[in-house]
């Protein structure tokens, strides 16, 4: 019984408890207790029926917690009405948990934490470590989130867009500790995709797989960033790419384009190019045009300027960039790249140094500083 399978069982056990009449917050606490107990006991004493074990322990924990004078009557009603254990839960139950945990009333960080715990079956400690906050803080964040959604009915469909956004956030957080958040996000999105059957859940899953495929080529052994054009494409995970492309094709065939499908299409075009020089930039620009229609985020428009620079030359890229606010994050990084491609290396070096000062993450700052250094110390300068 590996930990990932154990985690996979928790949302359906939680759904059964809720269906038996437990309120979501108490049921979720009980499942977390059962999960911690399983992590403690199972390595030496593995159960024959993992899910049955988890359900029994969680239900007992829930009843224990409810055992107070005021709760007694309600508990007796529940005991009388208890359905046969182990009834196979409908996938819909899990889907409703996704909707609840990503409820629009929650802030992004609360939705992320609650999703990872209630749907992802992670412990509070694991989530706290992944996000580098104290365990007590994460515990409070989760219990507040549960209070926020306490009155929400679990039997109504929610907003798919917020669920996808939460999973996107988890994936984009990447890999910062012992817990691989990108892999967690893929696992959760895969499960969601089965339950939801929506072109955009497919698009998001494809997007994740296509980016995850590049992971081992994205950094040097020392941890420095390797830009897409310089990655050793033989190190890309061809299995993940093939799966991502197949999922994307099926989604696009349904003719309901959304931003995740468009982003995945761009990633797929990169994956299709055996060498960076063979990239179909013209098609990539077309996809960026679609993406800008769907999502006018500054990141998208900056990346479009890079693509235009590749498709139509750096001059055209600079023209596209001129339409954007200079205060946008990464604006000077893109300008530096386009000036370098145009052969204006002194301007590029100055802009790379400026971009390094403005970088919001350390790996990118180091990368941009190295670019500036390479241009400033080039032979003959």
């Amino acid at each position, binding site marked *: 019984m590996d930990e990932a399978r154990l985690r996979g069982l928790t949302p359906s056990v939680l759904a059964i408890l809720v269906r038996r009449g437990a309120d979501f917050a108490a049921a979720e606490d009980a499942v977390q207790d059962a999960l911690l107990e399983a992590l403690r006991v199972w390595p030496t004493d593995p159960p024959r029926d993992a899910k049955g074990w988890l359900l029994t322990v969680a239900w007992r924990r829930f009843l224990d917690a409810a055992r107070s004078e005021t709760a007694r009557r309600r508990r007796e009603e529940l005991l009388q009405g208890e359905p046969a254990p182990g009834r196979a839960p409908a996938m819909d139950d899990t889907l409703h948990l996704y909707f609840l945990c990503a409820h629009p009333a929650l802030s*992004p960080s609360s939705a992320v934490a609650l999703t990872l715990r209630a749907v992802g079956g992670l412990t509070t400690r694991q989530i706290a470590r992944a996000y580098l906050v104290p365990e007590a803080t994460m515990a409070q964040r989760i219990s507040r989130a549960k209070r926020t959604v306490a009155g929400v009915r679990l039997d109504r469909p929610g907003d798919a867009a917020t669920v996808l956004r939460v999973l996107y956030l988890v994936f984009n957080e990447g890999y910062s500790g012992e817990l691989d958040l990108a892999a967690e996000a893929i696992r959760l999105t895969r499960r969601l995709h089965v339950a939801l059957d929506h072109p955009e859940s497919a698009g998001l899953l494809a997007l994740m797989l296509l980016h995850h495929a590049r992971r081992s080529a994205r950094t040097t052994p020392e941890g420095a960033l390797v830009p897409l054009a310089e990655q050793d494409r033989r190190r890309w995970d061809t299995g993940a790419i093939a799966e991502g492309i197949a999922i994307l094709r099926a989604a696009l065939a349904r003719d309901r384009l959304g931003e995740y499908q468009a982003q995945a299409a761009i990633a797929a075009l990169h994956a299709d190019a055996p060498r960076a020089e063979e990239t179909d930039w013209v098609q990539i620009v077309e996809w960026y045009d679609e993406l800008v229609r769907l999502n006018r985020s500054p990141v998208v428009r900056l990346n479009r300027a890079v693509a235009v620079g590749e498709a139509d030359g750096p001059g055209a890229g600079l023209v596209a960039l001129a339409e954007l606010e200079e205060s946008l994050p990464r604006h000077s990084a893109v300008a530096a790249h386009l000036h370098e491609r145009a052969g204006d290396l002194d301007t590029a070096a100055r802009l790379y140094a400026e971009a390094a000062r403005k970088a919001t993450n350390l790996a990118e700052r180091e990368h941009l500083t190295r670019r500036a250094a390479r241009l400033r110390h080039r032979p003959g300068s």
Partner: protein
Amino acid sequence: MAKYLLLKHYRGAPAAVNDVPMDQWTSQEISAHVRYMRNFADRLEETGEFVDSQALAPEGTFVRYDGEGRPPVTDGPFAETKDLIAGWMVIDVDTRERALELTAELSAAPGAGGQPIHEWLELRPFLTQPPTIED
């Protein structure tokens, strides 16, 4: 989901509105201040936004490497150093607006006369991990 450092300076920040040094406060004023700071940290933990809070001794030593096999060179403390950090708080919040709001709240800690100090705190974002999605 971004971390920010709230820096409190002994020296180096612009003067506070209620700029009376702590050693001139009454003991009730000091107690009220300490209570406010503790409550603030407790509340942040309850909202799931607290990461860390530490105070620093004012006297520091400058240390540098002095070559293979030689003991480190030390210097200071320098009375003339312009900037002196008194302590910090680290928060983990959803937006920059929230970070500003919390910083302002911390700056309102009571000082002399039980009135808010309005002290200047420095707010600095942490550098993050690079995003997974690169294009």
